[in-house]
């Protein structure tokens, strides 16, 4: 049992007043996330659910809403199990004072790992309320039914009592430590449907608040003095001209010099008056040389998959294929740059932050400022896109340090240039695959080496008797810097590593299918027995209208297929492209079939799939960060190009039913095959296989000229 008296959130519990509070404590529901263990998160409580005396139900979640729609889907799960309508639900997210600790919103884990805790809390609350109703109405529980927050005698519905009436005068805190029996898909009335999103009205009216929208009395706007390149060392600085601007304060801390002003424009003007000189290290490599570096400087390999003998497998092959794939650094570039407002008052630090990881921010700020975790509160308003980039939160520490030094609330809102400079990029990577097929078009050997991308997405989906996957360093391997593995920060980017690994593996499959004279879909079907993979491939083919043919067919128009598994879901993509004489690729149509287990909100799932596909076109066709050493050359959308409206293909989504499987991830899987499916379609259209992302017109054209 939880000792409530020792809980740091006792004030919050008191503030809730009467009613019924259900806490879920289920270690089995915790993601075994390496980061979580490293950061020492408490793992005692998964979820809180409160039923107030007016019948309103509040779900407290340490997750955050950054566009993935979980505010709505979590409310659906709570409403379903509790037996209330969706509009009785309020969801409070990402406030470290009132929400249960959480390791971070990433990895498509919210529905998979937090969802069961919500459902268990709600199912338990329903039992508690039904028991109270049984006492109140003087009938056994088995004779009661629940609908829309009302408990009634099944045979005599007029004998009824509402949840609000039952909660009145109660101060019940109940802890659940075993998973309740959950409702099945057949019983659903709220889950499995697509209500409009709860965050919609605020978002279409501009009322929705993001971190940079928070205003506090007396707040100052900071601009921080930044180096010209990563690894640069400050030699001298003169802030006198900046300090002379009316209303401006200069704060100089260890490794952090900033100008503070009552408005952002004055701060920007003052920053322009700061004279700073830096020693910039000579660049070790740039966006062309990085690939050799990644292989040469790689750490020892981890063997993540091995069976048979890959060398012997080569000998059994009718043909072997030895190909190397490259993936550049790619920016997250959410439209909301990182922002934070910090307020230091009475020995307590409150930070409103755009973050995917409020509890991580709390721990980091407490550690760096020498405060207890209880002395730091992180509040997460709506987050304007994350994609993994807001699991790093440098801006919160900057704001906290400056607020403490200034004794006033301080906002640090990064400019677009700072957002590009300090992004924790999707790492550049090299994947080398040697594979073989026999005369019947079956895989004989698969020897894969991954440099920089980590192992996610490298798992073999196909039956190969001789196989080995070696991974050199994970996504975040090595300290960044001029002498480091990466010249600047890297980190998780929507399905970290899987985009790279699926691009390589599914391109390789396509190359083999073509050489074996087999239709690329048939080649995949022939080489797997995984029923879920077979189902998504066939579902995609049905919707796409796939007609068997051996690639390449040429003529400037092509279609491709690619598939994969991620976050417990299976996906198959099919795409149709045209390639013009200048090598410009246009994606005309994409079909994505996804098996994600039980679907909580079908329309929400489709939105994530469509977004994944369209976002994926960026890394497939255009996104590639240019840099020279620690100098990031792309710093705004004039030279760095995320997808725009004119790129929009017809996107069709197929949710492959699998109600017997608990809900799986939905935010990431649909993006993982986009590079591969486009590259395979371009091969079909041109006969040229581009092995390096993105598929720029130059690379496509160079490939065509070689064929």
């Amino acid at each position: 049992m939880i000792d409530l008296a020792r809980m740091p959130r006792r004030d919050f519990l008191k503030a809730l007043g009467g009613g019924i509070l259900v806490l879920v404590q289920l270690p089995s529901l915790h993601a075994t996330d390496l980061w979580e263990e490293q950061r020492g998160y408490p793992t005692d409580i998964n979820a809180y659910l409160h039923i107030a005396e007016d019948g309103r139900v509040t779900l407290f979640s340490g997750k955050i809403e950054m566009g993935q729609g979980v505010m709505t889907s979590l409310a659906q799960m709570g409403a379903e199990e509790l037996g209330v309508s969706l509009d009785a639900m309020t969801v409070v997210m990402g406030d470290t004072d009132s929400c249960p600790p959480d390791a971070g919103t990433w990895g498509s884990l919210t529905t998979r790992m937090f969802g069961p805790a919500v459902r268990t809390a709600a199912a338990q609350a329903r039992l508690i309320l039904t028991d109270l109703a049984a006492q109140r109405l003087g009938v056994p529980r088995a004779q009661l039914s629940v609908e829309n927050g009302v408990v009634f005698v099944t045979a005599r519905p007029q004998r009824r009592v509402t949840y609000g009436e039952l909660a009145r005068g109660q101060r019940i805190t109940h802890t659940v430590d075993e998973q309740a029996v959950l409702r099945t898909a057949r019983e659903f009335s709220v889950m499995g449907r697509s209500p409009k999103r709860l965050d919609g009205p605020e978002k279409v009216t501009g009322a929705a608040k993001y971190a940079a929208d928070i205003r506090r009395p007396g707040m100052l706007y900071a601009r921080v003095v930044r180096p010209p390149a990563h690894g640069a060392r400050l030699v001298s600085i003169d802030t006198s001209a900046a300090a002379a601007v009316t209303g401006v304060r200069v704060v100089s801390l260890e490794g952090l010099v900033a100008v503070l002003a009552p408005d952002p424009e004055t701060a920007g003007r003052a920053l322009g008056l700061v004279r700073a000189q830096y020693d910039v290290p000579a660049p070790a490599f740039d966006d062309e040389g990085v690939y050799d570096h990644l292989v040469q400087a790689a750490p020892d390999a981890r063997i993540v998959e091995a069976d048979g003998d890959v060398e012997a497998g080569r000998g059994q092959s009718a043909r072997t294929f030895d190909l190397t794939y490259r993936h550049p650094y790619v920016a997250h570039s959410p439209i909301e740059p990182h922002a934070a407002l910090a307020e230091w008052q009475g020995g307590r630090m409150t930070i409103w932050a755009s973050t995917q990881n409020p509890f991580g921010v709390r721990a980091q700020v407490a550690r760096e400022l020498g405060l207890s975790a209880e002395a730091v509160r992180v509040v997460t308003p709506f987050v304007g896109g994350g994609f993994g980039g807001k699991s790093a939160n440098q801006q919160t520490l900057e704001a906290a340090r400056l607020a403490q030094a200034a004794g006033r609330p301080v906002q640090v809102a990064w400019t677009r240039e700072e957002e590009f400079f300090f992004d924790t990029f999707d790492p550049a990577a090299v994947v080398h695959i040697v594979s073989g097929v026999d005369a019947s078009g079956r895989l004989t050997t698969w020897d894969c080496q991954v440099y920089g991308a980590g192992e996610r997405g490298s798992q073999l989906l196909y039956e190969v008797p001789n196989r080995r996957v070696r991974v050199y360093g994970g996504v975040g391997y090595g300290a960044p810097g001029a002498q480091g593995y990466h010249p600047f920060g890297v980190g998780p980017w929507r399905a970290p590593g899987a985009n790279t690994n699926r691009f390589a593996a599914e391109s390789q499959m396509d190359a083999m299918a073509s050489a074996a004279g087999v239709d690329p879909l048939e080649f995949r079907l022939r080489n797997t027995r995984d029923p879920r993979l077979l189902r998504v491939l066939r579902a995609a083919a049905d919707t796409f209208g796939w007609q068997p043919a051996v690639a390449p067919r040429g003529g400037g128009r092509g279609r491709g297929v690619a598939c994969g598994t991620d976050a417990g879901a299976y996906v198959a993509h099919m795409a149709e492209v045209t390639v013009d004489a200048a090598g410009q690729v246009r994606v005309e149509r994409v079909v994505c079939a996804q098996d994600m287990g039980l679907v909580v909100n079908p329309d929400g799932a489709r939105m994530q799939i469509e977004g994944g596909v369209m976002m994926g076109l960026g890394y497939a066709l255009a996104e590639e960060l240019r840099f020279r050493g620690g100098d990031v050359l792309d710093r705004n959308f004039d030279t760095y190009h995320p997808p725009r409206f004119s790129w929009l293909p017809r996107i069709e989504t197929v949710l492959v039913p699998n109600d017997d499987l608990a809900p799986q991830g939905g935010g990431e899987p649909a993006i993982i095959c986009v590079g591969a499916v486009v590259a395979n379609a371009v091969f079909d259209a041109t006969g040229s296989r581009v092995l390096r992302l993105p598929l720029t017109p130059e690379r496509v054209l160079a490939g065509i000229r070689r064929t």
Partner: protein
Amino acid sequence: MTDSIRFRLNGRPVTLDADGTRTLLWVLRTDLELTGTKYGCGMGLCGACTVLLDGRAVRSCQTDLAAVGGHEVTTIEGLAQGGRLHALQQAFHDHGGYQCGYCTPGMILGAQSLLSEHPRPSRQQIIDGMEGHLCRCAAHQRIVAAIEAVAGNGGGHD
């Protein structure tokens, strides 16, 4: 240098004693606390800061305060009338034409400007008209659907 700048904002007269070279985006967000208008790139490349100036979309990050003197500025906060969502706001909500919502105010105002110029736009006109707006969550397909729904009958033809 302080100027007295008069303009109409969301239907109401406003007089600001401020430096006319200041940027409309920051005046809106800071002085007037209308934070629905977002900063995205500061170079007029992403569309997040879009407002209407006399009904036409402009990038408020590229607009001097002096330039709005004597004109009508509409921000996302001024679009709903009498507590009812504007048709585009309703359509974005109905069609799921947003995810994180950060680009949404600029998207909706950009769409409103497009529709006032082309009341029955073709799909190509919608694409062209919205090209300057970035949505990193990539809700493009549903944004186009929302605009087509307001334009009526799925829009005109090319």
